[in-house]
């Protein structure tokens, strides 16, 4: 049984170029998972980008040294499939009765397909959005869970004009993504346009009721003497029965190390 809370999945990731992987997502997460970083699989940087993974594995030079970026093929010349990558990892998670678990991606650039133990979920476009999938019914109750993520680059990676320029040909502006990746007066073009699982991946285990996106705000009166804290939360009841909940909010401050005032 796991305790409630968050487990970050930031180790043990493998990656491979999608065109070099001959099996599909269902097979990867059921019968034919990669077992070690053998070609085409390599150790992956998660969170990070495809280019970060290629640099880590010394398959391309570090683009921020000298003019090394010039030797890395740009997505406009290679095609999007060159920087479309599989990411793969495993995790254990043994739930007890009435526990629920979500798989969370805090940001992916730009869209993805997620496979977990043979089940597929499409993560829609957008570099700056969170994704959360309830995987309670997909988890293997005993043993390893196999997770594969196929990450696609931005839809409009654009082309860098020979003379460079601010935001290249501006095509990246058609997507909801960082625009500096086509190059700017202070930055070389980023060859993969920052494609990747670029922020935290985690699973969160809860009981029947989950807290979502609390909002804290304060108001001030009488010259900051009288202050109120306002707190709003979303609650999701994942169970099939009415949940009688006791909600508790507590504000504490650390007076000195390990001494708290509540």
């Amino acid at each position: 049984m796991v305790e409630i809370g968050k487990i970050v999945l930031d180790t043990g990731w493998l990656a491979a170029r999608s065109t070099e992987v001959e099996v599909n997502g269902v097979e990867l997460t059921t019968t034919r998972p990669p077992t070690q970083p053998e070609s085409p699989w390599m150790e992956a940087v998660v969170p990070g980008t495809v280019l970060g993974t290629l640099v880590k594995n010394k398959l391309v030079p570090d683009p921020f040294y000298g003019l090394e970026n010039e030797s890395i093929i740009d997505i406009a010349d290679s095609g999007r499939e060159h920087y479309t990558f599989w990411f793969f990892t495993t995790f254990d998670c043994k739930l007890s009765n009435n526990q629920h678990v979500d798989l969370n991606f805090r940001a992916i650039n730009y869209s993805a397909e997620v496979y977990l133990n043979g089940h597929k979920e499409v993560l829609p476009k957008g570099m700056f959005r969170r994704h959360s999938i309830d995987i309670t019914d997909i988890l293997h109750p005993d043993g390893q869970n196999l997770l594969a993520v196929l990450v696609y680059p931005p839809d409009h990676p654009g082309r860098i004009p020979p003379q460079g320029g601010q935001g290249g040909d501006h095509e990246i502006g058609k997507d909801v993504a960082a625009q500096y990746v086509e190059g700017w007066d202070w930055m070389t073009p980023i060859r993969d346009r920052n494609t990747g699982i670029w922020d935290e991946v985690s699973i969160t285990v809860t009981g029947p009721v989950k807290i979502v996106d609390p909002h804290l705000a304060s108001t001030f009166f009488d010259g900051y003497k009288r202050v109120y804290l306002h707190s709003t939360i979303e609650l999701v009841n994942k169970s099939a029965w009415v949940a009688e909940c006791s909600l508790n909010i507590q504000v504490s401050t650390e007076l000195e190390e390990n001494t708290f005032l509540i």
Partner: protein
Amino acid sequence: EHLETQHVSISPGANIHYTFPQLYFYKPNLWWPNGMGKQHLYNVEITVDVQGYGESDTWSHHFGFRKIESHIDSATGGRLFKVNGQPIFIRGGNWILSDGLLRLSKERYKTDIRFHADMNFNMMRCWGGGLAERPEFYHYCDLYGLLVWQEFWITGDCDGRGDPVSNPNGPLDHDLFLLCARDTIKLLRNHPSLALWVGGNEQVPPPDINAALKNDLQLHPYFVKSNDSDTSAIT
């Protein structure tokens, strides 16, 4: 007085919003930007216990009591800020991201942001062509007193200006832009260092996006400054 317990019933499969009764504080330690005072942070912890199950979920966050106001000065065209009622001279740095390969480690955020504080800066501006920065970035800005000016993903060069002139209508999918904006706001809104949201860099977003952002980010009527001068607005 800083502890509140409430009971609520939630239907099967339901998703509800719940607002706690307000918690009263007498002269709490305020959060100040770098150079104006300490960055006092309280820890807010919310838990939900379910009858017959026990603790079901828990959430905690550092929270700083501060009031940030700003307006465009008609004489200079510049934006003037006040924090906790005190005018502040902004010494700002432009920020894109800490690493072009997005290896955004906590250690690097801590070092970068502390470096900005050591330079005597009190604001970092996250440029519209870069990232909506991550919670770890904001965490260290909370700790070191760096106010954050966070822009959404619009630039002059890609969204209406540039050479050749680019498309002024922003991204193809305006609903996606707003979905991402709303989600980003929910991700970051509790950080005391978050001072100002801005539509973009050197460009106004397309009218529908701009109107939606303005509408979504305006103060809830409950918090809007009233005729009572003692009633305070919040960001």
